[in-house]
């Protein structure tokens, strides 16, 4: 059976600028794959090539076995796509909009009603079916976009940042929808939010600056992200003593100290730590027992930091 999505040596150039360099990966049926990268990494461009909105400069993109360069019509029938900006007609109401998409996707007339009910239910749109789209909040717009992609039960679902603009409750629900869908079909889900992929994806494809860095399990990514933990604090103390004290604390990997920029000589400290429990508490105890500690905070790892760790980890 053909891969749901297969990229082979895909390159995309706009003029002299190369956006995507020689990218290859596959997504198999029944698999949810995360497509992870910082903003501007080329996620949306890659999504658009898979969806057939733009064509690859070289290399082949196959969806359900069909070459997007020559058989995109066949592929389009098996594809559901939620672009980065939900493509909505503001003047239509939600159900007319979904009816339009259903008719283009050749949903048989007899089953349109049931199909609409299915996606409206899955995306929790019951309350707004008769409302014009321009009146909807950002969260609802995103979900109407998702509902549109789910219409016709496509084999392959492409979701470009599906949880952007949703509140935490809605994010939970949307992940549930994706997880349900992904148990039967192939899903490629782009995001720049780390926990998202670790929660719902089986595999993660990591890209940066248009290049594929790795295809790995969320667990490996989780390990990389744990090494990217940081604790920042502000204290009044002699710099060299403080550094020695902090490096002696269990779990601290590296320490950077600079003046906090206040008049009274406070120091701002940035500690790189492992992800072990209670690092911040040990640091707090060590500093506060000898000097005055003004502020202490454990930072969530940013994707950029994780990337850095990940790449460094790969080289070691």
């Amino acid at each position, binding site marked *: 059976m053909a891969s749901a999505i297969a990229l082979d040596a895909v390159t995309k150039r706009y003029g002299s600028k190369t956006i995507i360099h020689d990218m290859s990966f596959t997504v198999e049926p029944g698999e949810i794959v995360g497509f992870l990268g910082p903003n501007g990494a080329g996620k949306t461009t890659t999504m658009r090539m898979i*969806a057939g909105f733009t064509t690859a400069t070289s290399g082949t993109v196959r969806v359900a076995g069909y070459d997007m360069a020559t058989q995109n019509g066949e592929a*389009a029938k098996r594809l559901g796509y939620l*672009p980065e900006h939900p493509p909505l*007609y503001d003047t239509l109401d939600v159900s007319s909009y979904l009816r339009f998409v259903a008719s283009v996707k050749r949903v048989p007339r007899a089953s349109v009603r049931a199909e609409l009910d299915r996606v409206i239910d899955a995306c929790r749109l019951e309350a707004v079916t008769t409302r014009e789209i321009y009146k909807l909040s950002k969260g609802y717009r995103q979900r109407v976009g998702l509902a549109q992609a789910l219409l016709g039960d496509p084999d392959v679902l492409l979701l470009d940042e599906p949880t952007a603009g949703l509140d935490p409750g809605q994010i939970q629900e949307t992940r549930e929808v994706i997880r349900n869908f992904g148990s039967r079909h192939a899903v490629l889900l782009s995001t720049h939010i780390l926990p998202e992929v670790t929660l719902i994806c089986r595999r993660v494809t990591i890209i940066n600056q248009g290049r594929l860095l790795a295809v790995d399990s969320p667990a490996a990514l989780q390990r990389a992200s744990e090494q990217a933990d940081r604790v920042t604090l502000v204290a009044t103390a002699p710099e060299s003593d403080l550094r020695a004290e902090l490096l002696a604390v269990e779990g601290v990997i590296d320490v950077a100290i600079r003046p906090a920029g206040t008049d009274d000589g406070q120091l701002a400290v940035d500690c790189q730590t492992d992800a072990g429990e209670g690092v911040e508490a040990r640091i707090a105890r060590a500093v506060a027992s000898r000097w005055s500690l003004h502020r202490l905070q454990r930072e969530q790892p940013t994707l950029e930091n994780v990337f850095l760790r990940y790449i460094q980890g790969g080289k070691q």
Partner: protein
Amino acid sequence: MSGIAAIYRKEMQTYFRSPIAYFVVAVYLVGAGYFFTYNVFLTGTATMTETFQSMSILLVTLIPLVSMRLFSNEYSARTMELLMTLPLKAWEIVIGKYLGAVTILLLMTAGTMIDLVPLYLYGNPETKTIISGYIGFVLLGMACLAIGQFFSSLTQNQIVAALITVCVLLGFWFVGHLEGFQNSEWMRSLFSYLSFALHFGDFVRGLVRSEGIAFYLIVSAIALTLNASYLEWRR
């Protein structure tokens, strides 16, 4: 075919849920009504000839307001990404949208037919001339819409699309006037052949010539083909 039908239905829903279609049709009917009263009642002749001439200029300037949103709006609302990734061919999108716009044109045209009531009540007009005038009018409108739709696909700015279309349409309208400045025979015939106004004049005088019909249909076909090819090329 079902792709064309789906696009057409969507277009019609969009027209009647936004004020622009109502506005254009209303302005057009007010203008056409004015020309009719002016030409018929003030001159006292029961003919549509003068009215058709005035209506056509009004049509050429109002068509860009109908056509400007056809693709520009899909770009700026980012719905083009949906259309181009759904199982639709570029020409299905083009034809579906075009048929929607032509429907608005037919509604505008049908609205002016109220003028015929007083014409037949109080006068004795030439029915054949009126029919041929209406045929010419619809063909002219179709050619203008196709050109406007093509230019709308080139920019995401509706105003820019409308302005380019107005310029091009007025160019085609007045190009016949260049005829008198030319010495070479083939330049003269070229300019008169390209003129929207001269072909339209034939219809208004009651001449339904196959050359005129072919001219407007070919212009429409060229514009729509360019339109569809451009969408494919953009991928």
